[in-house]
């Protein structure tokens, strides 16, 4: 049937598509790993449809999971196409958060045979009392964009849902679709479950990726620091062409705002065809941009990672990357948005914003040619997801603890879950655990006389259904014009730093902050030019693969080899670096010491990305500070860290050099020390906010109310304090610590970095002034501090210095 349909459209199936159909027919499950835009949807789907065309199905038979509800409709149309053209008696529908109530009601009567849905809506179906009956006939599940999902808690949610589906329908086949990924076996295993046979279908379609750099004439007047740098604005505007639909990717929202504003300023005549897209912009407005791109009304869109996914259906011809590409897989994926035809060559134009990014462009090109791509890993036993799943299962027909424990352990995420941990989670869902047991709202599930757990009350059921999901919600508040419309939402922490009268760029407008009231930041339009967008959203770290490639390029430069146009251009900067200090060879770590009017600086350059560096910086600050108490100002970027000790009268420099012993970098006590430093920084408290929400300790939505105000926002923070004081062994607390270590600091990568530093050699240089590598750190200091002095000592130092 699949062959016949392809032939009727004049298409020839690729080898990987045929392979996927055959494997499906043989009853296998696994992963289809092919470049974006190569026809993987039909590879996964037509095998299942073939079966449905032979045996008329009753009820739901194929579930297609997409992480993006915005594209659910497009996918539905794509899945319907062969059904209509071949005249099959198969029904196709979709069900997401956007599905109309009338359509939902119809689906309640009878689900379509093929259903496009999101992880959240799939879980909601599992929370239906008739879940077993509704889902028992499912033969195939297709999970799209698995490479994106698997590294998030939504991926864990999908794994748990798949385990449930396998229990309902033991013969179900699961196929994931993934773009560029290095560890395909691991990704496939997560889909099919621990210990089960997983197939991987690779496409052999070569997709050539060309990385071009938009280069300045000379590096002389090119900035050495900063990441908003608009130096290349004019050359970029000259290159852009509304006749060719183009995506301009940036790394941060503030960068997107800045470049959008600058391009609009240069080319007011592009007003109708130029748009901005990032995660803080109102959803409706974002969707308008997406559809504008699709139907060709919009020709140039400046975007953040908000558009990394889901423009598969748009006729994008060119892709621009502003600033560091950060990672190889990400750059390949972004490049893949252009030239959306199988086999077509894709191109990405990289625009450097400061001198060292020239090195990154050269390094990225080389890594892509050598196919050095990052691995992606799933989560290990996040208990908040499990607690949520327990309540979902209690709602969806109830569960017996023994059976569900075995079922949950068939997922790779929970394969090593202990019975104690499982029982702890059941207790938390049953009565709130030790600390919260007195409160009826935490008695969410109850054990019946038959030993099975079911939902405890209708209220718990309603609250749970409203709050299903694991998408991390930033604490955001609305931004609205005074007496006018809502512009979007923004991180609370950004607003908290503003004073009334401060101006910032938002959604392409310059606005002046007026006040915060009713969970809304009220702003008015202004024409002032001193606006600074500073909020952080989505700052990716330099990936391991790219970092390794950058180090190789620098090493070559240190030996006088400058390969390619970017390296030739950046040569004077690197030569200055060598004159003032050095360029490290592989295995070596460069350390620079310097005294300025600001105080005494220590610079360390491991080139391991900002997450590792953040961990390293607080760790070193803590350990140095223990030996000799002070308060450090900390600065980090993708290349290294800076610790600045206050001059305190300028007497003797802080004795960094004497303290750079291997013991300073010992891995022993890493977790403890980090947590001590991290607790000071309150990072785990922030992490806990999401955990508490996923585990259902705080709710974002109540029936009839989006949120019950600031009290709930403050709620998770309060629970955190309380648990830390009264129940420090609480597993969710420990999870938040673990997540901070793993995800915030990439603990494993940090441990490797420490090992490298401990083993040495350190290349220690005293420099007369900050070097080209140091300048970005000095320029970008973020106001993070770490103090090993107590409140009293700090207060005295502040007051004493003022006397």
């Amino acid at each position, binding site marked *: 049937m699949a062959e016949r349909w392809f032939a009727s459209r004049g298409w020839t199936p690729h080898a990987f598509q045929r392979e996927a159909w055959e494997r499906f027919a043989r009853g296998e499950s696994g992963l289809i790993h092919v470049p974006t835009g190569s026809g993987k949807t039909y590879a996964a789907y037509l095998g299942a449809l073939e079966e449905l065309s032979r045996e008329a199905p009753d009820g739901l038979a194929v579930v297609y999971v997409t992480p993006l509800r915005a594209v659910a409709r497009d996918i539905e149309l794509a899945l319907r196409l062969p059904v209509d053209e071949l005249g099959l008696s198969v029904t196709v529908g979709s069900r997401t958060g956007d599905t109309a109530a009338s359509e939902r009601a119809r689906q309640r009567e009878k689900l379509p045979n093929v259903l496009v849905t999101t992880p959240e809506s799939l879980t909601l179906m599992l929370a239906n009392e008739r879940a077993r009956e509704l889902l028992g006939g499912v033969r195939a599940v297709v999970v799209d964009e698995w490479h994106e999902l698997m590294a998030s808690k939504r991926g864990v949610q999908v794994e748990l849902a798949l385990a449930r589906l396998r229990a309902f329908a033991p013969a179900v086949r699961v196929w994931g679709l993934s773009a560029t990924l290095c560890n395909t076996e691991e990704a496939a295993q997560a889909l099919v479950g621990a210990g089960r046979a997983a197939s991987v279908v690779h496409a052999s379609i070569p997709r050539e990726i060309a990385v071009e750099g938009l280069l300045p004439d000379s590096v002389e007047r090119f900035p050495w620091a900063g990441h908003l740098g608009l130096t290349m604005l004019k050359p970029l505007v000259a290159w852009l062409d509304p006749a060719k639909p183009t995506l301009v990717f940036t790394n941060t929202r503030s960068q997107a705002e800045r470049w959008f504003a600058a391009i609009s300023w240069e080319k007011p005549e592009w007003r109708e065809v130029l748009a901005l897209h990032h995660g803080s912009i109102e959803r409706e407005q974002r969707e308008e941009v997406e559809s504008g791109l699709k139907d060709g009304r919009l020709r140039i869109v400046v975007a953040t990672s908000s558009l990394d996914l889901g423009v598969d259906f748009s006729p994008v011809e060119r892709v621009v990357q502003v600033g560091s590409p950060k990672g190889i897989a990400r750059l390949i994926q972004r490049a893949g948005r252009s030239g959306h035809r199988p086999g077509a060559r894709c191109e990405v134009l990289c625009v450097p914003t400061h001198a060292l990014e020239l090195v990154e462009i050269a390094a990225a090109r080389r890594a892509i040619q050598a196919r050095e791509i990052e691995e992606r890993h799933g989560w290990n036993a996040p208990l908040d997801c499990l607690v949520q799943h327990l309540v979902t299962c209690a709602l969806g027909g109830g569960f017996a603890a023994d059976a569900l424990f075995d079922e949950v352990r068939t997922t790779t995420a929970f394969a090593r879950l202990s019975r104690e941990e499982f029982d702890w989670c059941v207790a938390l869902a049953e009565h709130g655990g030790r600390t919260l047991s007195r409160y009826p709202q935490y008695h969410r599930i109850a054990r019946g006389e038959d030993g099975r757990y079911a939902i405890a009350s209708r209220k718990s059921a309603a609250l749970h259904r409203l709050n299903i999901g694991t998408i991390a919600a930033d604490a955001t508040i609305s931004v609205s014009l005074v007496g006018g419309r809502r512009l979007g939402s923004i991180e609370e922490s950004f607003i908290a730093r503003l004073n009334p009268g401060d101006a910032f760029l938002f959604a392409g407008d310059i606005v002046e902050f007026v006040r915060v009231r009713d969970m809304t930041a009220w702003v008015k339009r202004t024409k002032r030019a001193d606006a600074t967008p500073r909020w952080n959203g989505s700052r990716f770290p330099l990936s391991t693969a790219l970092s390794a490639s950058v180090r190789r390029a620098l090493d070559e430069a240190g030996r006088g080899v400058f390969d390619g146009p970017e390296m030739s251009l950046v040569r004077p900067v690197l030569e200055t670096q060598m004159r003032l200090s050095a360029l490290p060879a592989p295995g070596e770590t460069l350390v620079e010491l310097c005294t300025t009017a600001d105080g005494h600086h220590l610079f360390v350059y491991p080139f391991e990305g900002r997450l590792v560096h953040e961990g390293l910086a607080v760790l070193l600050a803590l350990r140095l500070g223990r030996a000799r108490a002070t*308060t*450090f100002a900390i600065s980090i970027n993708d290349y290294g860290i800076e610790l600045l000790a206050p001059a305190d009268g300028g007497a003797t420099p802080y004795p960094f050099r004497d303290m750079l012993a291997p013991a300073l970098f010992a891995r022993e006590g890493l977790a403890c020390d980090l947590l001590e430093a991290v607790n000071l920084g309150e990072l785990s408290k922030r992490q806990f906010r999401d955990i508490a929400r996923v585990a259902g300790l*705080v709710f974002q939505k109540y029936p009839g109310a989006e949120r019950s105000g600031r009290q709930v926002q403050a709620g998770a923070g*309060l629970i955190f304090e309380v648990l830390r004081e*009264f129940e420090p062994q609480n597993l969710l607390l420990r999870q938040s610590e673990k997540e901070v270590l793993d995800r915030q600091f990439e603990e494993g990568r940090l441990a490797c970095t420490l090992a490298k530093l401990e083993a040495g050699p350190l290349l220690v240089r005293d420099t007369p002034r900050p070097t080209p590598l140091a300048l970005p750190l000095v320029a970008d200091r973020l106001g993070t501090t770490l103090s090993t002095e107590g409140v009293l000592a700090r*207060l005295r130092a502040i*007051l004493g210095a003022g006397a």
Partner: protein
Amino acid sequence: MRADGRYPAAVPSAAITIDGNEMDLMPERALFLRAAKALVVADLHVGKSESYRRFGVPSAEGIDEELLVRLSRAAMRAGARVIVVVGDLTHSAVGIGEAEMQRFAEFRERCALPIRLVEGNHDRGVGTLPPEWMIDRVRGEFALGGVRFEHEPPAVAAAAWTVSGHLHPMLAVARGARSVEAPAFVIDHARRTIVLPAFSKFTRGVRFEPSAGVELFAIAESEVVGPIGGAA
């Protein structure tokens, strides 16, 4: 005022004299008027954690417990004859459940001193308090030993010095990389007002930076540090 000329003296309690009235600023977040033997506190917000729970936000046992133990200890340490609460003894009506009633009754068994409460905005919302709490409740203001007590700091100076609460003042200072936020007593000479730090530790507050005419005494690690600022 500075003991060693470099930074302000830090002693367990700071003794000050205002208008000839000797008083101690205690690290327990209380003010002691020596002549009247009155322990003055503000903003206890008893039942706040419970009211959070009623709104779906869990919080621990033990917050009110610690608060009431600290209160009876401070009264004992100072040798107080009367406790004056300058407003917001309680947080909200929903926050006073059976457990809170029981806990306060236990506190009253330990500490039977007369308690005079100047109503705060939160107390008004709570309404009548249980008689067994033995609270002598005053609306508006009252005076004792030459000092006025009023929940919200007066906008203009009254004839006598006023002791207030309501603002939950926090000292906020920073220099270079160092920064500190700590609960503080505010002594405002222009308005002739002393604003007490919130007695409850589960509060946020109004940040005060040192300024002319306003002296701050911060509580850091069980010590009272000050005066900070104040020189005209």
